[in-house]
């Protein structure tokens, strides 16, 4: 009874080939992150970043292909669950979005990326850092931040060279992100002649780290590295101090948040973290972004700036292609050279950020203070090579 229901590549619908008749064209951008569950705060933060970008674009009033474009954000919740991730991905494809921003977690980004690839819809993640994401050979997959390998390396180098630590202990939270980062950190430490005295583990819902920290204490490492999120990192720092560990604490982007300081209290003082890209205040438009965001949504949690950049990159590619059709503007994304608020964004062949810069920070007076940037061409021209090392 039914005819062929061949799945149309979701492309043409959004701008149904109506060049001049319709003065306005709606561009649907999908955004996916966990909005419920333990990581909901980060998900919302990402969504807000995307919203800010969309609002700005709309306020500016872009014109593409002769029509005024209005961006519309379709925000979905994947609960950090891979299965839900694919369902909402499909929902976005069905809704014929012109592009997708997200997902937040590598775990959901990976399976979903296949669905976007099949539908030919470009995807830019502002937070999925698992290297695999861009290595699957999908032309549609991009990310605007350094992946775990790059960041782990920078962190290892920093520990060995800047902190001059010979011995480290490594903890990770057994998530794709935490484990990946910790493994790369370990490699880098070893490569730099350091020693890993202990490798301990927790999980992304834990609050009690006394046992592993006590064990680490007995090994007396100079640095304790944690691959994981702020919600564990904060209490961990606090317990580290109260157990009397003398080691300094170092963590990646997941813990590089004001939240960590809030949760750790006084114990946070002097600890380190890294963040892909370059500090906001050093970037053109960065401080502005920060102010705007804070005014509208409150404190930045973590990846909002990257997500903001992702949207901007996508819009930029559309502009250059002079089309909002995925098939048309997708090639342009690969050629991006965009000055974002987090760094200068240029993609390599896989869709990874070229020369992703990593910046390091330390808590001083209850705030993250910028220390230095490792890697990335952009580091040089954006940030003054500040002499304020440790």
């Amino acid at each position, binding site marked *: 009874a039914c005819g062929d229901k061949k799945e149309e590549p979701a492309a043409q619908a959004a701008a149904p080939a109506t060049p001049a008749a319709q003065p306005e064209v709606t561009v649907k951008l999908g955004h996916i992150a966990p909005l419920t569950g333990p990581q909901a*705060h980060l998900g919302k933060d990402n969504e807000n970043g995307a919203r800010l970008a969309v609002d700005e674009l709309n306020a500016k009033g872009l014109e593409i292909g002769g029509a005024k474009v209005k961006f519309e954000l379709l925000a979905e919740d994947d609960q950090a669950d891979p299965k839900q991730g694919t369902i909402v991905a499909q929902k976005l494809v069905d809704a014929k979005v012109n592009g997708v921003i997200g997902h937040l977690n590598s775990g959901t980004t990976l399976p979903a990326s296949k669905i976007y690839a099949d539908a030919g819809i470009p995807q830019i993640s502002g937070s999925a850092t698992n290297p695999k994401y861009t290595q699957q050979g999908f032309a549609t997959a991009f990310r605007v931040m350094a992946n775990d390998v790059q960041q782990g390396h920078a962190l290892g180098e920093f520990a060995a060279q800047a902190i001059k630590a010979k011995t480290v202990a490594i903890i990770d939270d057994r998530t794709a992100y935490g484990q990946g980062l910790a493994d790369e950190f370990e490699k880098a430490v070893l490569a730099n002649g350091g020693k890993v005295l202990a490798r301990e583990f927790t999980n992304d819902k834990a*609050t*009690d780290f006394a046992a592993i920290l006590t064990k680490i204490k007995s090994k007396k490492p100079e640095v304790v590295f944690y691959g994981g999120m702020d*919600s564990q990192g*904060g209490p961990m720092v*606090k317990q580290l101090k109260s157990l009397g560990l003398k080691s300094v604490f170092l963590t990646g982007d997941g813990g590089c948040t004001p939240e960590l300081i809030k*949760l750790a209290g006084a114990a946070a003082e002097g600890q380190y973290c890294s963040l892909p890209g370059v500090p906001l205040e050093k970037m053109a438009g960065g401080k502005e972004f920060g102010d705007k965001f804070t005014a509208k949504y409150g404190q930045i949690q973590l990846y909002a700036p990257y997500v903001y950049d992702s949207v901007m990159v996508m819009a930029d590619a559309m502009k250059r292609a002079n089309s909002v059709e995925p098939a048309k503007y997708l090639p342009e994304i690969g050629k991006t050279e965009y000055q974002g608020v987090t760094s200068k964004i240029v993609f390599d062949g896989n869709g990874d950020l070229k020369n992703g810069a990593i910046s390091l920070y330390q808590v001083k007076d209850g705030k993250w203070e910028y220390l230095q940037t490792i890697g990335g061409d952009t580091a040089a021209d954006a940030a003054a090579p500040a002499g304020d090392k440790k």
Partner: protein
Amino acid sequence: MDIFIQQVINGLVLGSIYALVALGYTMVYGIMGLINFAHGEVVMIGAMVALTVISMLSDSGLPGIVIALIGLGAALPVCMGTGFAIERIAYRPLRRAPKLAPLITAIGVSIVLQNLAMLIWGRNYHAFPPILPTSEHEIFGATITGLQIAIIVIAALMMAGLILLVQRTKLGRAMRATAENPPIAQLMGVDINRVISLTFVIGSALAAVAGLMVSANYSIAHYYMGFILGLKAFTAAVLGGIGNIAGAMLGGILLGLIESLGAGYIGDLTGGFLGSHYQDVFAFFVLICVLVFRPSGLVGEKVAERA
């Protein structure tokens, strides 16, 4: 050696926290034979309410203890009311329903409370203001904070109080009678609805205390915190023998010790093959072993099953 002692202390503190929560579980289970899946969520609400009040007062200049008590004073009625409402809405209509029906409503309640809390308190993690003295004490080279000592003491006191209540008072007897045979208990003149409500209210009061202690100890609270805590506490209650009050305490402490020593020594025990990521495996393994040899938990009474 001091490392070992520190691990034992870590285990005791963690275990007491589990015990605090497990007491509430066991109490309700003992009377209703019902896994109150939402108990962890009540703990979370206790933590959230206490934290909210305490945050508002943290600059008031009042002594920390006083602020904490005010926080608890606010959390208690909210939790008790929540517990009361949960029983009324989700469990009471299902008293005579198939056994798993209330388990499902409990899961439903748990989801509802979590998301309500998310709407009220937002998605962010909340930091507990540092109002309580975190003075560290040295015992045999190991450290423990005053708050942690308080947690251990309070858990023990609450257990003792509950045992007294259940074993020695008339209300306690009515609770046990209701637990064993509700219709017959009614024949004795026990208003079982009232007894069950009271049980929930008391259990929820315990949850409020637990919520405050947990969030103060880890200085963190989040709308999702109840789930894992509840799960661990439930495990502890079963380990001890669910329905048994002393068992909940014992199970809690034991689980705490197992986790702590497991995380600390599992690597050495297995020649480095397994690490602290198998801490929970280790804990569940011990649990399974205990239950294989003592199918009703460590101190759970053997059901007087006569063929």
